[in-house]
């Protein structure tokens, strides 16, 4: 923006002279790109400024832990890492079940900086990795857009959009050290390379594309998006009769090398030839061989013969291939579509079949406002851009169109896939916007360069007009001759852009910058008050429990406990073992007598629950409770029943008329244990669910309260040992409370003689 300020004052001639000189243009472009990158990075630092340089929410904590392990023990140890501090007692073959790209990247950066004798803490690298890459992403978006149109203003606009659009910032603020942080850059850059390879039909670019595709695979599970999109693009091209040998070269090179590259990742392994998600790519690969051969034949024989040949040969081969695929799938050599994949087609699927997936909030379908919230004005520039692509329909534009359709569907299905949509939105919107500006910023006739665009937002559009001469040569000029309309439209655009920037800044600073580890609240006097219960509790664990004390909690907190408290956990956010999670769910949702043996068997020492009732913190375990029940019910349908947790009238209540099952469930007891004692009689109430609680709080026999954080958000319970004299915990507890037995309790049924 600074440039714009400066530029506004500069005289026209200077600009014109500058504009004429290609090297200056280059220089300006570089400057602008650098500025955009700076803006992108800067706007992601809100979280650091607001709070501190800390790793954010859940998954990043694991990535952070893994990175530390990698830095400490080296690459090969990392590769063979068997993690015995998660998924107790199963352990996790972490080295083989994660996407190493992120950790390896920051590891390399770390060692590089060390090599350059820059003393830097690995944590800071992890915190700042995402912003750094966002700069690169902006650059990649610039490149991609440049492939679409000849007007480099579009590219610069796209870069600017990409840099600051909230849809991308949401996953890449400083501290959200997650796979997406680098994956989006790789996504866009891979697409750029793909387009490049397609245009030049060169093995080299294809190989490059494959390499980056491999990097992408190493970094994010979302690589499947590329794996499906590129073949789709190729297929569409062929169907449009746009098959070209360039396509053949680019695609086959990409597929042959890319598939091999992806198979190098232990976690991916044989999937590319085993699962159906990857089959389209393979199919298209074969299909292209076929088509290429047909092309050759056509060049060889007269067309009539070719017809018959086509029918006979093609039909036969296609049928055979189809049969083969079906057969293999039936025979189990190829896995049918995985559950996550189904849930993309039928949003209801997950809820029924795989609650573990449905329970994740970011797997929910997107709400419409979210689109506007994340993309603001781009959302309406986007269709215009796609339309532009339709106008001059070349291979790369087909790609944008396909990507647009594909991406927007998935973004509608899953919130998190908004991320994959964002790049194409930026590109298309940029094309539209630049077209608009370029058209309306001609002064009167094409060749005279016009400087009114200085009112326009940032330097980007200025460049566009520098290009104008060149572009006017290439395409017919749309004549707008009244200065008024030009001024009006340009002004409007300017305002929109300004609003956009303002919106992005606002969203970033308010919505996406809080590291859900630390909560911020406003005091009555408006000052900010930090609620730090999580770290308080994790610190307590770290300092007051044995090194290998097993902590049982719902899986959301597994990574954080591992990362901050450094204690073994039963389940964590890497939800690879549904049964294990269901076991925890069962323990949480059943009576003490049932839960205790489970906890004994899993050697649980402490149980951690999150309870927002006192503070009105709505993301607590009671609100997640139903998911635990559902997941448990999925495995033990006859022991845990969701229905039992509702009142007869079908409500989910926690107050006096909650269902018995609910009141006896471990989770309920742990959440509300001693809670009523905080309040004067009859006043006890839960601020999240707005419920008035009974005065005597539930009794715990097999657990004892170990710790409760300042605002009661985290409550930690210790699992009692077996009773020393062999009573059950209820009896022992009642004895402690001073109820002496006078006589032995008569058991029902016939008497039983003692045998030795």
């Amino acid at each position, binding site marked *: 923006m600074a440039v714009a300020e400066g530029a506004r004052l500069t005289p026209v001639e200077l600009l014109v002279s500058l504009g004429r000189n290609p090297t200056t243009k280059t220089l300006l472009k570089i400057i602008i790109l650098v500025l955009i990158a700076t803006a992108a990075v800067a706007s992601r630092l809100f979280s650091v400024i607001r709070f501190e340089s800390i790793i954010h929410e859940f998954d990043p904590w694991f990535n952070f832990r893994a990175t530390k392990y990698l830095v400490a023990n080296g*690459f090969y140890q990392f590769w063979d890492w068997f993690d015995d501090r998660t998924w107790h007692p199963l352990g996790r073959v972490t080295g083989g079940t994660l996407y190493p790209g992120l950790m390896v990247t920051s590891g390399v950066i770390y060692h590089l900086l060390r090599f350059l004798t820059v003393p830097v803490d690995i944590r800071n690298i992890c915190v700042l990795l995402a912003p750094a890459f966002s700069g690169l992403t902006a650059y990649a978006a610039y490149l991609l857009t440049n492939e679409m149109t000849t007007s480099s203003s579009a590219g610069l606009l796209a870069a600017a959009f990409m840099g600051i659009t909230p849809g991308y910032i949401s996953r890449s603020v400083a501290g959200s050290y997650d796979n997406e942080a680098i994956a989006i850059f790789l996504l866009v850059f891979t697409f750029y390379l793909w387009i490049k390879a397609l245009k030049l039909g060169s093995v080299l670019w294809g*190989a*490059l594309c494959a390499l*980056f595709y*491999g990097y992408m695979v190493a970094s994010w599970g979302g690589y499947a998006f590329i794996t499906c999109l590129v073949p789709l693009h190729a297929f569409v091209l062929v169907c449009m009769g746009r098959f070209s040998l360039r396509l053949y070269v680019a695609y086959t090179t990409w597929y042959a090398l890319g598939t091999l590259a992806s198979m190098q990742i232990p976690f991916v392994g044989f999937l590319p030839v085993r699962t159906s998600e990857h089959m389209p790519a393979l199919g298209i690969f074969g299909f292209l061989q076929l088509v290429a051969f047909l092309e050759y034949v056509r060049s060889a024989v007269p067309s009539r013969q070719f017809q018959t040949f086509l029918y006979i040969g093609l039909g036969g081969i296609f049928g055979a291939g189809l049969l083969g695929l079906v057969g293999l799938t039936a025979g189990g050599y190829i896995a049918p579509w995985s559950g996550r994949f189904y849930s993309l087609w039928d949003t209801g699927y997950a809820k029924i079949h795989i609650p573990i997936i449905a329970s994740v909030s970011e797997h929910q379908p997107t709400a419409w406002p979210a689109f506007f919230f994340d993309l603001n004005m781009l959302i309406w520039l986007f269709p215009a851009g796609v339309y532009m692509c339709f106008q001059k329909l070349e291979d790369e534009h087909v790609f944008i169109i396909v990507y647009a359709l594909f991406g927007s569907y998935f973004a509608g299905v899953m919130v998190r896939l908004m991320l994959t949509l964002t790049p194409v939105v930026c590109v298309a919107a940029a094309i539209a916007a630049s077209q608009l500006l370029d058209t309306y910023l001609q002064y009167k006739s094409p060749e005279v360069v016009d400087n009114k665009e200085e009112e326009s937002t940032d330097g980007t559009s200025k460049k566009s007009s520098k290009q104008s001469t060149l572009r006017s040569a290439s395409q017919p000029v749309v004549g707008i001759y009244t200065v008024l309309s030009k001024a009006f439209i340009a002004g409007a655009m300017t305002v929109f852009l300004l609003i956009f920037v303002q919106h992005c800044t606002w969203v970033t600073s308010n919505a996406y910058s809080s590291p859900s580890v630390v909560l911020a609240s406003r005091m009555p006097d408006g000052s900010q008050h930090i609620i730090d219960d999580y770290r308080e509790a994790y610190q307590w664990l770290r300092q007051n429990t044995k090194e290998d004390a097993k902590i049982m909690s719902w899986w959301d907190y597994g990574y954080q406990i591992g990362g901050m408290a450094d204690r073994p956990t039963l389940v964590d956010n890497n939800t690879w073992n549904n049964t294990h999670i269901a076991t925890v769910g069962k323990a949480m949702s059943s009576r003490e007598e049932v839960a205790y043996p489970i906890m004994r068997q899993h050697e649980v020492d402490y149980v951690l629950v999150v309870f927002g009732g006192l503070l009105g913190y709505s993301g607590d375990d009671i609100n997640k409770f139903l998911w635990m029940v559902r997941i448990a019910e999925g495995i033990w349908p006859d022991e845990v029943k969701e229905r039992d947790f509702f009142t007869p009238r079908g409500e989910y209540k926690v107050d006096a008329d909650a269902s018995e099952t609910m009141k006896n469930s471990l989770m309920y007891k742990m959440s509300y244990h001693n809670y009523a004692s905080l309040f004067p009689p009859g006043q006890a109430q839960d601020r999240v669910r707005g419920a008035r609680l009974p005065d005597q709080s539930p009794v715990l026999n097999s657990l004892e309260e170990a710790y409760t954080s300042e605002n009661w958000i985290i409550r930690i319970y210790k699992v009692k040992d077996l009773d020393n004299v062999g009573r059950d915990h209820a009896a022992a507890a009642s004895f402690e409370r001073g109820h002496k037995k006078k006589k032995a309790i008569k058991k029902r049924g*016939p008497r*039983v003689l003692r*045998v*030795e």
Partner: protein
Amino acid sequence: MRFLHSFVTPLLLAAGAAQAASSWSFDDATVQVNGKKAAGTKEKFSETKQLSQPITISNTESIKILLVAKDGGKGKRPHQAFVVLQDELSGLEAPFPMTVKENGKAVVDIKYTDLPVQLATSSAPLKASVVLASFGSSQGLNKPVFSIAPKVDPNAAPLVYEKPLRYGKREAIHHTFRDDPKNPPKIISAFFVLAVLATVPALLVGWLSLGANVSHIQRALRDAPIAHGVFFGSLIALEGVFYLYYVSWTLFQVLPVISVVGAATFLSGTKALGEVQRRDSPGRGDYDSSQRKMCCGNKNGVDED
């Protein structure tokens, strides 16, 4: 004080014990199985003759035992008048005290439901014996009189007896391993190896038949000796590095070497291909190609670490 008393009593009682004469006995004893509705037949038994076949009792019935206890021939009430049921297998036994009148008339009614669960579920018939004894000198009586066969009738909730936990050794467990994947017969492998290897000469022959040759090598070496030597050499070297990587090296040994050799390939490649270029179609340079090779060499390096 107390133990003084316990000193004295033996002396006193020794006298009483001396003249031990009478002993306990019983007669006109009957046993009868009573169902819900119908009372079963009375069966008589005595000390001398016990019932031959066992009395069956099912879970709604009860057994009624009547007898007259006698001490030294005349009816008297003993302090201990039990009917003791014993499971002969496990040796477990359960006493059923009789209610006795002054005149020694004793009766007990044993319901099936009163049986301890081990006895009720016992497979062998239970030995029922009468125990009559009391204080004083007269000798007690403990005689098996009949046996009871508890029979579980199907249409009632079956009694289940789960053994209580007793410490002791437990049966051994041995883990069974998954069996390793097995190799195909070596012959087939060997045959295919040979077949695959055989294709190389075939390839060469094919080329020769098409008039392939390397006759330009002298020219090449003459025009750009180093370039060609190094270029082709480095290609072979790279493959050699790959081979070493396959055999023993680690990634970190390989990468530097690759980058070095790659650079060599690029530099020499520039010249070499240039030469080839001039040879085939005179007068055009092809630095571009080599440039691209370089960048790929580096890409290579970048993406593997």
